[in-house]
Every structure is written in C-alpha cells, then in structure tokens.
C-alpha cells in the first residue's frame, strides 16, 4: 500500500470538510394525491363537468410556490373566533354550544405558526346564511356562520360555535350532508393552500356522504372526523371537539440553514 492515497479525480472529494446535509431547496414534499379525492368522482355529480381530464403538470417548487400571503392579527377583529357572539343581534344562536380546537401541523409534525384559518358552517338547523341557500330550515337571526383565527407560535387555534345540523342537497334525491364545518388554511407557501371539511365523531351520515366518500383512503377519511374531547370541554357551558390539520411538509427552509445575508 502506498503511504499516501492518490488524489481523487473529483477535487471536491479531497476536501477535509465534514459532510453536512445539503441545503433544503425549500420546496414542499410532493403531494400524495392518493389520499385526496380524485378530481373526477362520479358519485359526487358536480365533479363530472368540473374536473380536469389532462394530467396535472408537475412543477418543481419555485419561489412562486414556496412563498404565500402573510397574515397578522391586524387582519382580524376581536370576535372573529367566536361564532356565538360575532353575529349575535338579540341573544345567543340556537344549538349545541361547542369549542373546536386543534393544531395546524406540517407533515414533519411541526406546528405551523401564525397562519390564517378560516371556517364556515350551517346553523344548528342545517341552514346556511347565504342568498343561494333555499333549504326550508330557518335562518338563525343570531348566527352568521363564519369566523377565522390565526394560529399561535405552536400552530394552535380554537374557536367557539354551535354544532351545525345536517341538511339535504341535490345529488341523489335523498342525499344528506353529515354535520360539518368547512376549513380554509394557508400555511407558509401558496402550495400548501388547502380547503377541507371537519366532521363529527359518531355521525351516522358519514359513511353515506357522496362528498366525503370521494376520498379513496379510509384512514384519510377518518382523519377528517373530529373526536369529542371531553377534557377540553367547558363544564356547564360547551362540549369540545379536537381537529388537527396537517399541511404539506417542507424540505428544510432557508431560515434555518442559511445565515442571514447568504
């Protein structure tokens, strides 16, 4: 054996520097589309004419996808996360008082801080305050049905509302939506943008809902069902449901791995 190893052809391999993990490019983890509903899901009839048929064009995340709008407390009002009070005219809305709380996380399990969460729902009778909703259940004069919150440093959010009712809709002649709350979440980059719906543990309409069952993966469907969380309830006041939301993970970030100015 020679005492001295020959120089390697690639000069980078001769460097005495320790190996360090490569800088993340800041791109989001590839979306696992198998846990999302397909665009074309014929059991949900509205999707038939509104579903693209060409393959999506896969795009490596550029700065356009890694960035996204930033929101702050200045965007919100003090009652925005209290649906029992934010539209009250002469009393509280009718219905079961509930607290909904949870964390917005990413796929690595980290909380997503300071991100905007918006939510909307029908009232306790299953009627939306919307000029296009004509269901016979009455509008509740004290209930608007929407709110929003900013997650805290750990990704935690919470709001107070009344439990929404189920309602019929035109898909099959006897299709009913399970009780649900719509959620809109931003994350830190526009590629994390997500709209979903939260359902309630034990609702018998869940397995027969043509919208919920567009989700092909049983576990993914179950993750949309919020369990009753008695520990978080407010005795003699409100029950609580827990709903965590997971956004796409990110291949490290500039902030952590790059020193300022690089």
């Amino acid at each position, binding site marked *: 054996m020679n005492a001295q190893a020959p120089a390697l052809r690639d000069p980078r391999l001769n460097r005495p520097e320790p190996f360090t993990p490569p800088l993340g490019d800041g791109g*989001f983890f590839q979306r696992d589309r198998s*846990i999302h509903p397909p665009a074309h899901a014929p059991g949900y009839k509205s999707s038939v*004419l509104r579903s693209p048929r060409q393959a999506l064009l896969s795009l490596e995340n550029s*700065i356009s996808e890694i*960035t996204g709008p930033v929101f702050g407390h200045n965007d919100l009002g003090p009652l925005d996360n209290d649906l029992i009070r934010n539209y009250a005219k002469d009393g509280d809305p009718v219905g079961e008082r509930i607290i909904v709380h949870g964390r917005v996380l990413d796929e690595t399990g980290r909380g997503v801080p300071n991100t905007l969460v918006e939510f909307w729902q029908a009232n306790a009778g299953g009627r939306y305050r919307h000029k296009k909703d004509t269901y016979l259940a009455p509008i509740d004069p004290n209930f*608007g049905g929407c709110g929003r919150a900013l997650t805290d440093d750990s990704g935690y959010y919470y709001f107070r509302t009344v439990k929404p009712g189920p309602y019929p809709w035109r898909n099959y002649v006897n299709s009913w939506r399970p009780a649900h709350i719509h959620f809109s979440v931003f994350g830190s980059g526009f590629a994390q943008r997500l709209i979903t719906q939260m359902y309630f543990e034990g609702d018998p309409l869940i397995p027969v809902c043509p919208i919920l069952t567009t989700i092909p993966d049983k576990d*993914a469907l179950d993750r949309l069902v919020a369990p009753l969380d008695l520990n978080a309830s407010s005795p003699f006041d409100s029950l609580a449901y827990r709903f965590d939301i997971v956004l796409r993970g990110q291949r490290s970030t500039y902030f952590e791995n790059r020193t300022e100015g690089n």
Partner: protein
Amino acid sequence: MPQPLNYLKETASQTAGPYVHIGLIPAMAGFDIFEKNFSNVLVTPNTAGQRITLEGKVLDGTGTPLRDVLLEIWQANASGRYNHPADRSAGALEPEFRGWGRAGSDFESGLVTFETIKPGAITDRAGRKCAPHINVWVVARGINIGLNTRLYFSDEEAANAADPVLNLIEQPTRRKTLIATRSERAGKIVYSFTINLQGPEETVFFDV
C-alpha cells in the same frame, strides 16, 4: 420491520362547496360580519407599478361559466419580489402590497375580476429569468381539490418564449391556455383570461 418514518399525512382536501362565500367573502353571501375583509383589490394608492384589471371566467365541460367559483391570486410586486420572508431577491419590498387577493365570480355572468398591478419578472433560484406571471388557485363546488394554474401576459412574448415553466408544457398550443390577453378599455388596461376545466382548450393545471 424497518424503523418507522414518523411523517404525518396531509389532511385530505374537500370541495369548497357552493357556499364558500360565507367563510371567505361574506358580503357576497349577503351579509356583513367582519370588521376587516379580504377582497379582489390588491392595490393601494401607494402601490408601485402598472395598474391592471384581470378579468376572466372559469368554464365547465359544457362551456358554461361557473357562477359559484372562487379564485385567489398570489403575485410578486412590480419589482418582481414576493412579500414573503423566503424571497430574498434584490427587488424593492413594499410592505403595503401583500400580493394576494380573492374574488368570487358574479352570480349571473360568472365574471371574476381583480384590480392589481402587473408583476415584475422573477429570477428563480437557478438564476433563470421567469416571465411575469400571477399564480392562480381555483376552488368551487364540484372541485375536489384546489386547482393551481398561472396567468402570463400577452404583451410579454419574448419573456414568455423563454419562460422555464411555459416551456415545460409539451404541446405549444396548450401554453396559450395560460396567456391573458391585453386590451385597453376606457383608459384602463385589462387582461382577459378563460380557465377551461375540460375540453380541447383545457387549461394547464399544475401539481405544485
């Protein structure tokens, strides 16, 4: 069994439904609730850059405009910089210009409009020049997971021809589905677009 990888799974998407306005644009649902509201006007009097109106429709597989669709746009400012901490490019940052807006389509005509500025060209992290563009996200009843697309500008022919994303589109004819057409109307600059969800002119949608 190997060690488990403890990644979480993304929460599944669900349609925004026909009443998306309640949560995101309550005034369109017919009521006033929040002190502060988001809108389709991105500009303030101080915003730098060329004022433009974006005007378009989203068509279903029969060519009928969706009248319950909601669009969000996300764009750089006139210097080509996004208002986000991850964008460290050299362009001037404008704290007042968030670069984001949302709009519901008109319940009768299906028309969607935004008042904004034309974004500057962007240099991506590989150092390539990208043509000015606006990122678009489409949700509605019947759309199970939000659709991502982009709008480019018809008067940027040279930049568009060199754009790395437009050039990823195999069929040149499909690139045209992302180009908004410039016109002038009563002294205002209008860029018109059509998003076709299906059919021979189907818009290019991205898996971002």
